[in-house]
Each structure stands twice: as C-alpha cells, then as structure tokens.
C-alpha cells in the first residue's frame, strides 16, 4: 500500500505492454489462424456496432443491478442472522454451500422452466451474489475486536447494542469485499441466462446472435465490454472497502484479515455434528422439493429429490440412466481433478514468482482479469482452434476458471506474512529467497488448501462447460443431450449429482484444511 503510485505506474506500464502485444499477435494472425483479433479491430467493431449496444447494455445492467441489489440484501441479512444465531447458520450451511457449488449452467434450464420474463436472470444473479456476500458479512459481523463488545456490555448494552454500535459498522470492509466479488458474478449470471433463455435484449443475447456470424472481433468486443463493467464494479467496491477499512483501523485495535472459513465444528461432539450435518442436508432437500411445490410445476418437468431417486433406481429406464450417469462421471471427475491440480500448481508457482519479482505480477494482472470475465462461449472457438477438442482443451478451460481465484488466495497469504517475522529474518541477514523459504513458503502451503476448497466447484464447472461447448463428453454433454431428448429426470439428476460432488469435494478439502490448520496454529 505504501507505494501505491509506484504500483499504479507499474500497472499502467504493463497494461501498455499487454495492449501492444495483443495488437501485434492479432495483426500478425499468430494465434489460431487469425481468430484472435487485434485490439484495433475489436474497438473498430465496437464503434461500428455502437447503435446496437445501448439497449442491450441497459437490459443487462438492469437485471444485474436488481439481482445484485436483492441478492446483497438477502446475503447481508442472512450473514447478520447467521452471525447472531449459530445454529441457524449450521442448519443452512448445506444450502449456502449448494448455492456456492452449483454449476450455474445447470440452473439456467431449470430456472427457465419455472419462471418467465426477467425472473430467471434476476434469480441467477441473486444466487451468484449470495455466497460471497453472505460469508464475508458473517465473518465481518462475527469476528470483531472483543474489547469493543465489552465496552458496550459494561456500559449496560445488550447484544443488540453490540450489533448496532460495533458489529455492523466494523463489518463494512468485509461486506464490501464480498460485494466486490458479487458484482461481476451477478453480471455473468445474467449474461448466461440472456445467452440461453430467448431473451430479447441483453449482452448475452447479442453474443448469441453474433456467434453465427463467425466474426471474432464482435465477440471479443462484447466480452471486453462485460469485462469493463465487471472491472468498474470491482473497482468501486474495492474503493469503498478500502475507505471503510482505513477508518476502521486505529493503531492499537487490530482488525483480523478476512478469512473465508465458516465456523468450525470444534465445539460440537461427534454425535451433535452428525445430527447437524444431517439436518443441514435435509434442509437442502426440503427447500428443493418445497420450492418445486410452491412453483406449482408439472411433475413431468420438475423433479424433486424423491423423483430423482426413483428415476435412477426404480424407473423403467433406471439401469440405462445409471450407466450413462456413471460413464459420464467417469469422464468428468478425473478431468476436474487434473484441471484443479494444474490450476493450483500454476497459481502457486506464479504467486511465489511474483513474490520474488513483483514486476511480473503487475504485467500479468490485466490478462488474468480478462480471462476471468470473458464469457466462455466467446472464448470457445479460440480454445478449440488452439487446443483442439481433446482432453487438453478441457484442462485448459478448467485451468482458466480455477487459476485466478487460487492465485488471489495464495498471493494474499504470501503477502500477509507477519512483518515482524520477516524483520527478524532480515536482521539475521536473510536474503529474499531465504525469507521466502522459511517464512512465506510455509504460509503459502497452508493457503493452498484454502485455494483448493474455493476452486474445486469451479473446476467441476469448467470441465462441464468444456464438455458442453467443445468435447461432447461427460456430465456437461449428458446435461445438454438430455435437454434435447426432454429427459427431465436426467436433467435434474445431473444437476443434483454435480452439486453433490462439488459439495463433497469442498467438504473433504475443508476437513483437511482444518486438521492441518490445527497443526500449524497452536
């Protein structure tokens, strides 16, 4: 933070390098026989199409804005409630993790079955916003400086006064950190529905209509515009977050860096934990079937948990369905694992490298941002032309969706090494490499599991997207084919199974994380 103008200059410099390299690569048609357009062509195209954009942009921003606002209110409300009533959090944990882990492409067709108009867009945006904002609110409200709470209590204050005078205000930086992630999420969610949902106006609609033209410059223009909006919302909320963080710091009161863990289960006995786990699982099932009942959908289209089990095990085509599901899982899961591993490894190596050579970091960052908010349908032709439709393409897509969040987590852990420890090491004449080895590396290894936990559901999503757009294998393809065949049982089964695996993976990693964390943090 101390050299913010320096880092700003570095970022500007690296952005310039990116622009020049991009332009050259595009002009010389170095990638995929010219399918990767130069920046000048993209902006030229944007200018030519300027009459088309306002209405699309307005529609997308409107749905994303409503979804973001409603989602934030719900998520902040839940975060506050969960911080107050721990049992409530524990019971709804399954629901929260499901919203975090559910591959959004699974939800689109389902939402379109149940709702009309802008509702599916708004709901998907809400779901995209919910988890990051809820968790950061929960942590921000819960993890306050305990002395501040005692000041309130000793002056005759109740828990409500602590909430009112301390918690809500102290949580602002964390809440804004959550909103910062939620904004781009809402935008992508809305575009996903626009793309698939027969929506008249929206950037996603425009993307779909433009796909058939075989003009990459248009597709990249739409993508860059989306990236810009995501970037702006990220920046605005970062600024607010930084502002409140500054005003929350006095020199003696230390605010904890926001963590990403939900409450640990340590204070429960094994039996209580089991009961809570089952309760939280049942809450998901109850909400699932309850929502279907409330929406009053045809039972042919809308399948609840019981119907899915029946479809798989007692239905006439159950054996066939099980075979198809298992072979699809056999294709998808290993690739998700490999992609996740590659993404983590690359993120780890890069984070370490950047710690040694910060200049590389700022040069790399713009690329990372673009890769994150480019809609995948626009990138697919490029990926397919460069990497083919083999396992490699799948791994590349998976890598691209897991790498960035992992990198951010690991880099954060590296940079938050206690300065005191570094000072001690340096006072003994430690070189940069030694500081890295003795202090930062152990810390980064700890964060690797946190990164894995956050990236695991995305890895599954990445593989499914690649399967559905490029390779035609596995769960992603099974989902897509089932839609063509009106195989509603399979649509819901794939949804349920992919969520189940994403949640399982998350939970296993989080258990490992807690055990290892216990070892390191005495």
């Amino acid at each position, binding site marked *: 933070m101390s050299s913010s103008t320096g880092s700003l200059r570095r970022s500007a410099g690296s952005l310039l390098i990116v622009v020049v390299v991009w332009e050259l690569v595009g002009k010389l048609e170095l990638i*995929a026989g010219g*399918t990767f357009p130069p920046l000048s062509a993209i902006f030229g195209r944007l200018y030519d199409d300027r009459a*088309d954009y306002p*209405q699309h942009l307005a*529609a997308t921003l409107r749905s994303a804005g*409503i979804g973001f606002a*409603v989602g934030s209110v719900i998520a902040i409300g839940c975060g506050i409630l969960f911080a107050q009533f721990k049992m409530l959090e524990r019971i709804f944990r399954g629901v929260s993790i499901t919203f975090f882990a559910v591959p959004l492409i699974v939800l*689109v*067709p389902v939402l*379109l*079955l149940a*709702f*009309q*108009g*802008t*509702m599916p867009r708004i709901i998907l945006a809400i779901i995209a916003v919910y988890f990051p904002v809820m968790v950061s609110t929960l942590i921000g409200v819960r993890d306050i400086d305990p002395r501040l709470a005692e000041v309130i209590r000793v002056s005759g204050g109740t828990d409500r006064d602590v909430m009112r005078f301390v918690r809500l205000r102290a949580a602002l930086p964390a809440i804004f950190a959550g909103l910062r992630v939620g904004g781009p999420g809402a935008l992508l969610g809305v575009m996903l529905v626009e*793309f*698939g*949902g*027969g929506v*008249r*106006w929206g950037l996603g*609609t*425009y*993307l*779909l*209509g*433009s796909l*058939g*033209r*075989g003009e*990459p410059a*248009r597709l990249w223009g739409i993508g860059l515009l989306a990236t810009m909006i995501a970037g702006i919302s990220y920046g605005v909320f970062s600024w607010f977050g930084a502002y409140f963080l500054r005003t929350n710091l006095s020199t003696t009161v230390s605010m904890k860096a926001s963590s990403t863990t939900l409450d640990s289960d340590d204070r429960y006995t094994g039996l209580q934990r089991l009961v809570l786990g089952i309760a939280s699982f049942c809450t998901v099932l109850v909400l699932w079937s309850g929502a279907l009942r*409330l*929406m*009053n*959908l*045809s039972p*042919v*289209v809308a399948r609840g948990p019981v119907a899915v089990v029946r479809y798989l095990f007692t239905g006439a085509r159950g054996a066939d369905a099980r075979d198809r599901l298992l072979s699809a899982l056999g294709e998808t899961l290993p690739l998700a694992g490999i992609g996740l591993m590659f993404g983590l490894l690359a993120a780890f190596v890069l984070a370490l490298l950047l710690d040694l050579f910060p200049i590389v970091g700022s040069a790399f960052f713009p690329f990372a941002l673009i890769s994150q908010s480019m809609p995948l*349908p626009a990138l*697919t*032709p490029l990926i*397919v*032309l460069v990497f*083919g439709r083999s396992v490699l393409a799948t791994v590349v897509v998976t890598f691209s969706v897991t790498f960035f969040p992992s990198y951010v987590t690991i880099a954060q852990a590296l940079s938050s090494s206690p300065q005191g420890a570094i000072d001690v090491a340096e006072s003994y004449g430690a070189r940069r490499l030694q500081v890295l080895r003795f202090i930062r590396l152990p810390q980064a290894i700890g964060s690797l599991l946190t990164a894995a936990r956050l990236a695991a559901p995305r890895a599954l999503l990445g593989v499914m997207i690649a*399967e*559905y*757009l*490029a*390779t*035609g294998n596995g769960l992603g*393809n099974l989902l*897509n*084919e089932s*839609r*063509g*065949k*009106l195989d*509603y049982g399979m649509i819901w089964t794939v949804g349920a199974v992919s969520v189940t695996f994403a949640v399982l993976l998350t939970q296993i990693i989080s258990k490992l994380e807690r055990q290892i964390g216990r070892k390191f943090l005495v």
Partner: protein
Amino acid sequence: MNQLSRRQFIGRSAAGGATLLGLSAFLNACAKSDGKTSSGGSASPLSMQAAWINDAEFMGYFIAMTNGYYAAEGIELNYLSGGPDVIPESSLLSGIAPLALTTPDSTIKAIVDDGAPFVIVGTQYQKNPIGIVSLKKSNINEPKDLIGKTLAVPPVNTITVEAMLKISGVDKSQLTIVPYAYDPTPLIKGEIDASMDFTTNVPYTISQLGEEASSFLLYDFGVTLYNDTVVVTKDALSSQRELIVKWLRASRKGWEENFKDTTKYPAMFADSYFKGTGRTIENEVFFNGAQQPLMESDGGFFSMSDEGIENNLRALSEIGIKGTKEMFDTSLLAEI
C-alpha cells in the same frame, strides 16, 4: 383449470405474509415491468413459445403481429422468443405458453415416454431445414460422405442426427461427433468438416466469409420430418380450440403475405423485431428466400397431409420412437 395460475399463487402467498414469498412477489413485479401490459378490450390473450431468437424463421408471426392479423381475430398474442436453453415443450408443460413451435422428434418422444399431454395441430416446415453444411471443397454431399469426418451437432439435435445415421446405414462410431456452438469459425478454419444446422442460414454466413458452402437436407436422405411443428396442450385444445384455430388462420395469413416478396419485410423489421439481434438484414433476406420451398404445400401453410404424417412416423420408428397418427390433429386446419 384445477391448477392455480402462477399469478394467483403469488398473490395468495404474499397475502399469507411469508417474507420469502413477499420477496418473490416483489421480484415478479420487477420482472413484469418490462413485459407487455395488457391493452384491455375484448381480445383474448394467447402466449406462444417460439423455438429460437428473432430471425427470418419467424417472419410470418412478426408480420401477423405488425399487420394486425391476430388483433383482427381477437387474439392478443404474447410472443416468446426461444434460445439454446429454452425447451419449447417445457414451456407447454410448465404452463408458460399453451402453444409452442417444436421439433416433432422431441415432442413425440415426450408423448410416448412420459405421456406428455401434447397434440400436433400443424407444421411450419413441410421439410425440416436442418441439414449438413460443409465447405464445398470438402465434398460432403450425402450422409455416407461423413464417414471418417468430424461433424458438429447442437446437443439438442442428438435425436435427429441419430436418425440420419441409422437410416443411412452409418454407424455412430464411424465419424466423430462434437458439440456445435453456433459459431461457423471452426468450420471455416477446417477444425471440423461439417456442421448440422439450418441450411437456410449458415451457407450465407460462410459465403460472406469468403468460402463456398455446400449443404444437403436430412429430409432428402430419409429423415422425413417436419420442423417447427405447432404443438398445443390437450388442456388448451379442449378449452381454447377456437382461439387456436384463429391463431392458425392469422399466422397463415402472415406467411402468405411474407412470401409475396421475401425481401420486403426483413428490411421493415430492421428497427423492430430484428433490431440489435447481432445478425444482418441481408442474412434474413437470404434465409427468407431459402425457406420458402420448405414451407409451401398444396394444403397451404401449416397443413399436414396424411402422407407427411406417415413419413414422420416412419422416420421416427427407425430410431425406436413409436408415434401414432392420433398425436396429430388436422381438424383445426380444416376449420380455417
């Protein structure tokens, strides 16, 4: 009507005071504000679910809306565009629309497998425009030419491609099938050899990109299916039969008007139905001209001859979908 309508449902729940449902009512209000508001009068509202985004495939309906043909029949049409994630049959089942344009293969499969309460009352295309599109230089002129090649297929058309291969005696393992993502770039760049798409559409784009395209219809190789079949729910057929007949009459008029001059209307819709779709008007003109021979028939637009129905059932039975004549109802067309 033993089911609550969604609107009624939301009204009741909100009255019940549950916060969550109050919220859903609020969202619904937000969502509704960009839909069309009812203009009142004595017109009966009717929703139709189209199969894709706005393009020349749906010219007739746009004309009928613009020229007031529906209004003249007393229909207040709520036209719903489709898209890759919209399953038209699902809109029927979930009560979003009582009338949809579908592919006959998926519709009949749903009736056979799940007992879906559907009736086919007409067809937009006498011959399915879906075909195999390739670059001329690849020399792919019939299904057998696909052996050893890579074919991109939209995953929702799996049934159709299986039918083609079965009827042509080609085994699925003899070619590579990959997902088609509606972008012709991989075809132009030679990454795939052929794609399955509307022959009325993609060849134009390919020619714009400086390549010569060739294509053949699946219909001409034994997959004798209709497309954009007009499907209604049994419920709607008994309660809104009159309205459906009126819809068929107005829509037919729209298509008749369209084919008087296939270049006239696409340009007229440049600032309405085709505004900002990302496609060009020239593309729509090409599309409109190319689809004319696939739609015209002696019985007039939408008509279904006994022979045509037989052809559909035969093609479907090749891939194990056992439809019956009773799934088609030609009596509404007879009343036009």
